[in-house]
């Protein structure tokens, strides 16, 4: 047979030009945007391109990043989770209260993570067997979990310190998790983020489970008739999200050892979803990568950092973040529509 010309299915002529291939990758647009931003800030400010500041940015984005990793799974599976800000607050508070009650660190953290598992499970079951759209189910859970946190703490702030009853050695390890540095330079939060993202990347790109997440989000029908249990995969994604939100909440409390149910993590879900979407995940499911999400998180982090360094007012910062979301996602959609 002759070498046929395919309708749209033409294979890349050659795989040798790795640069060209990189540019074709889904993440290329976000990566270039990030690069441009970094270049601009290096010239526009003195403080940006220092290792200290860069590590600082890394720490600042870590908690957002850990949650965005979870959100990547949920969005790829074709769902969304609005309850993560509340979970962040609730799990942190639960762990904090146990520490104050004199618990050892590991059990306290495990219970905190377990609350995340339960919330994720409820979200998942409601959105699958319960037949609720996840937008509705998790919107309900956003309020329910926040309410539960308020009831649990009676609306009072929870402060983790020795005076309130925390054991000294627990307090020290807990503080190290949130405020410490690995080899005295790398913030521990960043270490956790890198670990979580690395593991998630392995799971999503190389494991059978990751494959199923993509399949379920790309076409639930195709997945179902192939014998994939769509509900189980979706519930697992929600549970993973719950655990990571809980973990971020616990780290958050470890960094800033005082938390209040009415304030902590308010509106955080929107930042998380924004970072994930900027990173190329699609709200309609089936698309997204951990690498993209990391870039999305970095864009938002670098943006915040740069605006502070340039002395822009916090009000304008908020506005700029909104613009970045729209422009970044817009560029992505436009470029794919042109070629697709």
């Amino acid at each position, binding site marked *: *047979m*002759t*070498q*046929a*010309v*395919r*309708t*749209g*299915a*033409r*294979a890349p002529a050659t795989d040798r030009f790795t640069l060209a291939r990189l540019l074709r990758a889904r993440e290329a647009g976000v990566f270039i945007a990030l690069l441009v931003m970094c270049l601009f800030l290096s010239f526009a400010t003195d403080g940006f391109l220092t290792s200290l500041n860069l590590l600082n940015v890394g720490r600042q984005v870590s908690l957002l990043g850990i949650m965005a990793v979870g959100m990547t799974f949920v969005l790829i599976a074709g769902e969304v989770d609005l309850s993560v800000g509340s979970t962040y607050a609730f799990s942190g508070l639960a762990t904090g209260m146990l520490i104050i009650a004199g618990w050892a660190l590991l059990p306290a953290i495990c219970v905190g993570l377990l609350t995340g598992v339960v919330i994720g499970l409820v979200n998942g079951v409601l959105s699958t067997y319960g037949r609720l759209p996840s937008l509705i189910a998790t919107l309900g859970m956003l309020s329910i979990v926040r309410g539960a946190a308020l009831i649990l703490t009676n609306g009072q702030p929870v402060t983790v310190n020795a005076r309130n009853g925390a054991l000294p050695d627990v307090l020290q390890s807990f503080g190290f998790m949130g405020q410490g540095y690995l080899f005295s330079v790398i913030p521990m939060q960043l270490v956790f983020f890198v670990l979580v993202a690395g593991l998630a990347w392995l799971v999503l*790109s*190389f*494991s*059978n*489970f*990751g*494959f*199923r997440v*993509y*399949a379920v*989000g*790309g*076409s639930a*029908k*195709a*997945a*179902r*008739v*192939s*014998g*994939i*249990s769509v509900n189980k995969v979706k519930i697992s994604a929600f549970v993973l999200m719950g655990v990571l939100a809980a973990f971020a909440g616990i780290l958050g409390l470890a960094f800033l050892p005082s938390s209040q149910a009415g304030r902590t993590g308010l509106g955080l879900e929107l930042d998380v979803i924004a970072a994930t979407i900027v990173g190329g995940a699609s709200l309609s*499911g*089936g*698309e997204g990568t951990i690498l993209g999400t990391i870039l999305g998180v970095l864009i938002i982090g670098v943006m915040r950092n740069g605006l502070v360094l340039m002395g822009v007012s916090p009000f304008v910062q908020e506005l700029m973040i909104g613009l970045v979301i729209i422009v970044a996602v817009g560029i992505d959609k436009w470029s794919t529509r*042109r070629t*697709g």
Partner: protein
Amino acid sequence: MTDTQPPAPIVDISGLTKRFPGVLALDRISVAFRPGEVHAVIGENGAGKSTLMNILAGDLQPDGGEIRIDGRLATIASPLASRAAGITVVYQELALCPTLSIAENIMMSDMAARSVVSLVPRDEMRREARAALTRLGMGTLDPDTKVSRLSVAEMQLVEIAGAIRQRARVLVLDEPNSALSKRESDRLFEIVKQLRADGVTVIYVSHHLKEVLDLADRITVMRDGRTIETMDNSGLSEDRLIRAMVGRELDTAAQWSLQPQARSHEAPVVLSVEKLAAPGLDAVSFHARAGEILGIGGLPDSGKDMLGEALFGLCGRQGRVTIDGKELRGGDPQASIRNGMALVPADRRGAGALLTMSVANNVVSASLPRFSMAGFMRRAAVRREARAQVARLDARISHLGQKLGTLSGGNQQKIILGRSLVTNPRVLVLHEPTRGVDVGAKAEIYAILRGIAGEGVAVVMISSEIPELIMNAERVLVLRNGRISGELTGAGINEEAILARAMAS
């Protein structure tokens, strides 16, 4: 008559009933499928064929009756259970994941059968996928291509490739080749025969009676949700099958012997295309005159599958497309509609249809201005038009408010065709216009197309079905490798000539 007992059935269905709101899709049907036979199931659009297949697939649950597999009573509670019983299904409405690659789709059920904590065997996936594609003669398709970029024909091949590599005991093919050209279909039939020799039961749903007669060992006819009869395939004719399907004599001879009349040599050129280039198309130029039915043929990889979308402006393009001398902007379907072009796409579930909206709304959805006043829909006019189109195309629906997605495949096709007729187009572009449509309705549709051509519309018929081109077109362009490789007119239009121009290298 027979001195040997027929073998015990592998799948034995009796009294099976399925009810949907407003329709009894299956009414106590009984049919037995034997091991190692090719068993065709035929019937008009909406007869209940796909419903039966979806029950076998575990995708629908029956309301009554029983299914025996190997003599034992079975409930097929889920697709997983169906697969465990050795049944594999190629669905009429494709079940592929558009965001994944060809290889990932072909291997999806393999992945589902493996442990969740295993690794994704990328290389093995690619290798297996390539082997499965090669078996279907599509070895040049890159397994890493995303399915969303494929044509409907290629998607069908991917779906078939995934199914045949599963070594099922029962393979269900629900109109598997409705978008394939003869070459791919023939290859599929070779494989079916091979599978039969290996003892696989193949259940084959089709509207192509000639293929059915060539291929099947036994044929079951369904009508209005019932099984009418099961016949051994010996000494049967197409007419005999049609009579069983429609339950009365159908004067097919008169309808099918119609020949295209050349009447438009002198008519003005309506559509003119100059150096049209798009993905898979390479500088194609042609024109169509008023009152002409222009056929376009070619293999799936010839570029013909992109032509409809490129003309209509659904994808990016270069070159000039004009209607009555007015140039159409690329990438702007709105402008195409405004200037009198209508498209019936091959992919009726994608670009084609509003599946969750009613039949009535679908019929008028491309001509809203005409059916609204001061921003409100003129409901009476909408219903009148919808009723007229449904009657004209003989579509089987339960009521005008029925959601399009719940119609049988062939009936969806008729409604989408109706929608494009309502726009009163100057140029009507049809891509696989009778995909999944039954014999009787096909003849109707051809008559309608001739009728509107007679009113001065230029009809461009892109089709993989060569007989369809021969019967209707007075001029046929054949595409190969994205270019026009030949033009045939009048008596020069025949199967050999078209194939020769489609395949020569």
